[in-house]
C-alpha cells in the first residue's frame, strides 16, 4: 500500500506530462470511465452529495482497517474528479484520510474545480470522504 502522499505525487507527475487543457481533460474523462462503480443499492436520493450540479454518490466500506470507496456521477468530468480522489483515498486507514491535505488538486491544474462557483461539489466530495473516515475511525477506536 502506498501512502496518500506518494499516490498524490504520482498523480502530480502524471498530470505534468500534459501540454494543454485538452490532454488534461481527456485524461480525466478516461479516468472517469475507470471509476470503481458504486453498487446500485447505495445510489439512493439520500446518498447524493449536495452542492453538485451533477449527481454524485460515494460509498465507503471498511476492510482490514482500510477504507475502500466506490462512487458514480451522471457527468463524466465529475466522474474523473472522483476517480482521482478515490485513487488517493481508497485502500487507506481512516486516520490517514482524516489527516491528509488536498493541495495536490492545485498542482494538477484542477484548481478551478475547487471554486464554489463551479458547483461541482469537489469540496463537498472531499468533505464526504473525510466524514466517512471520521465515522469509521470512531468504530476502530
Amino acid at each position: 500500500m502506498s501512502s496518500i502522499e506518494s499516490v498524490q505525487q504520482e498523480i502530480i507527475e502524471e498530470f505534468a506530462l500534459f501540454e494543454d487543457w485538452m490532454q488534461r481533460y481527456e485524461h480525466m474523462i478516461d479516468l472517469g470511465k475507470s471509476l470503481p462503480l458504486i453498487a446500485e443499492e447505495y445510489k439512493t436520493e439520500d446518498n447524493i452529495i449536495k452542492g453538485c450540479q451533477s449527481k454524485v454518490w460515494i460509498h465507503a466500506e471498511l476492510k482490514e482497517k482500510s477504507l475502500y470507496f466506490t462512487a458514480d456521477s451522471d457527468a463524466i468530468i465529475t466522474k474523473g474528479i472522483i476517480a482521482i480522489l478515490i485513487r488517493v483515498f481508497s485502500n487507506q486507514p481512516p486516520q490517514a484520510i482524516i489527516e491528509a491535505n488536498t493541495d495536490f488538486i492545485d498542482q494538477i491544474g484542477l484548481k478551478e474545480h475547487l471554486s464554489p462557483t463551479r458547483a461541482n461539489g469537489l469540496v463537498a466530495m472531499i468533505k464526504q470522504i473525510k466524514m466517512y473516515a471520521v465515522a469509521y475511525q470512531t468504530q476502530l477506536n
Partner: protein
Amino acid sequence: MLDVKKIRADFPILSRKVNGQDLVYFDNAATSQTPKQVIDVIVDYYSRLNANIHRGVHKLSQEATDAYEQARKTIQKHFNAAHAHEIIFTSGTTEGINLVASGYATLLKKGDELIVSALEHHSNIVPWQMLCEKTGATLKVIPMTPEGILEMDVYENLLGPQTKLVFVNHVSNALGTVNPIEQIISMAHDYGARVLIDGAQACPHIKPDVQKLGVDFYVTSAHKLCGPTGVGMLYGKEEALNELPPYQGGGEMIATVSFEKTTYADLPHKFEAGTPNIAGGIAFGAALDYMNGIGFDSIAQYESELLEYATNKLKQIDGLKIFGEATEKTAVLSFNVAGLHPYDIGSILDQMGIAVRTGHHCAQPIMDYYKIPGTVRASFSFYNTFEEIDRLVEGVHKAVSMLQ
C-alpha cells in the same frame, strides 16, 4: 444597423482573455456586462458626489440627491410610469417581489388564490409560497406546453373571483419565451386580481410601457441591462402601492416618529428604508440612457438575427436538442446534447474561453417538466457577434468529440 465593433469598444471586459483565449461572453441572461459610460458614472459618484441623500443641507448631499432623483425620473420615463413616486428603488428583482409578497401578508385570507406560471424563476415562486404559508391562500399554476408556451385556456379556467394576485415573468430565464403579458394582465383584471410581472429577463431586450400594459407591479434588476448589481426597481401603480403596508422600518421611510406613534412617509420613501444604493441607482439611470442611446428596436432586431443564426448552426449538431421553441422568444438558447451532461459541456466550453451557464437556471420545475438535470444556456446580447457564435458552435463540436 448596429455598429457592433464600436459598441464592443465601450465594454472594457470584452477585451480580456480567459484561459488564454479571447473571452466569449454568452451568460448575459445571468448578468450583462458594463459599458465604460456606466462605470464612469460610478467612479464619478464616489470621486465627486458621495454623500448621504435626502436629509443633508450641505451641497454634496443636495447634488447626490438630485442625481439620485434624476435617475428615478429616467427610470420613470423609460418605463412610461405616470409618476416618479411609482418607481421604488430596490436591491433587485428578488427584493421587489419580496416587498410585494410581504405586503400582501396583511391583505390575504384563507380561500384566496394566487396564480403563478410554470415558467418561473425560483424568486417568483418561493416568496409566494411563503406568503401562502402565512395566510392560508392557495397557489395555482398555469402549465406550459413542450415548446415552453403557457396554456392560456387553463389560465382562463384558473381565474375567478377568489383570484387575488397573478405573477408571471415577462420572459422566461431558462427558455427565453416571451409571455403574452398584456393578455394575462387584462384577463386577471376582469376578476379584480392584481398582477406582478417579473421583468428581469425582458428588460435587456424589450422596453415595456407599464401604462399601456396596465400592469399593477413590474420588477426588474439593473445588472441585467448594463447597470451594476445590487440595485433594481419596483414599479407599482400608485393605488396598488398605497394598499401595501411598509416593507422595512427604519430611517427615510417615516414622516414622524415618537414612541407612541410613528407615521409613514409617502411614496416612494415609504418603501425605501435606510440609506439606499445611491451610486447604483444613479448608474441604473446611466445604463438606461446608454441602452436607449443604442435603441431597443435596433437591439431587438440584431439579437433576433444572432438567435436565428445560432439556432440554425447548433441544430445541425447531431443529438442536440433545443429547449424553448416559442416563436416569441428573446436571444436565449437552452440546449442539451443526447447522452451528455450539461456540466461537462459547460466545463469544456470554459476551457475554450466561452462563458455559458449550465444547470437548472433556478427554474427546477421546468427541468422536472422535461425530466432533465439541466441545460447549457447561451444567452446573447447586442454586443455579441456572429463570429463568437461560430466559436460556440466549434466549442460544442469539440466538447461532443471529447466526451462521446
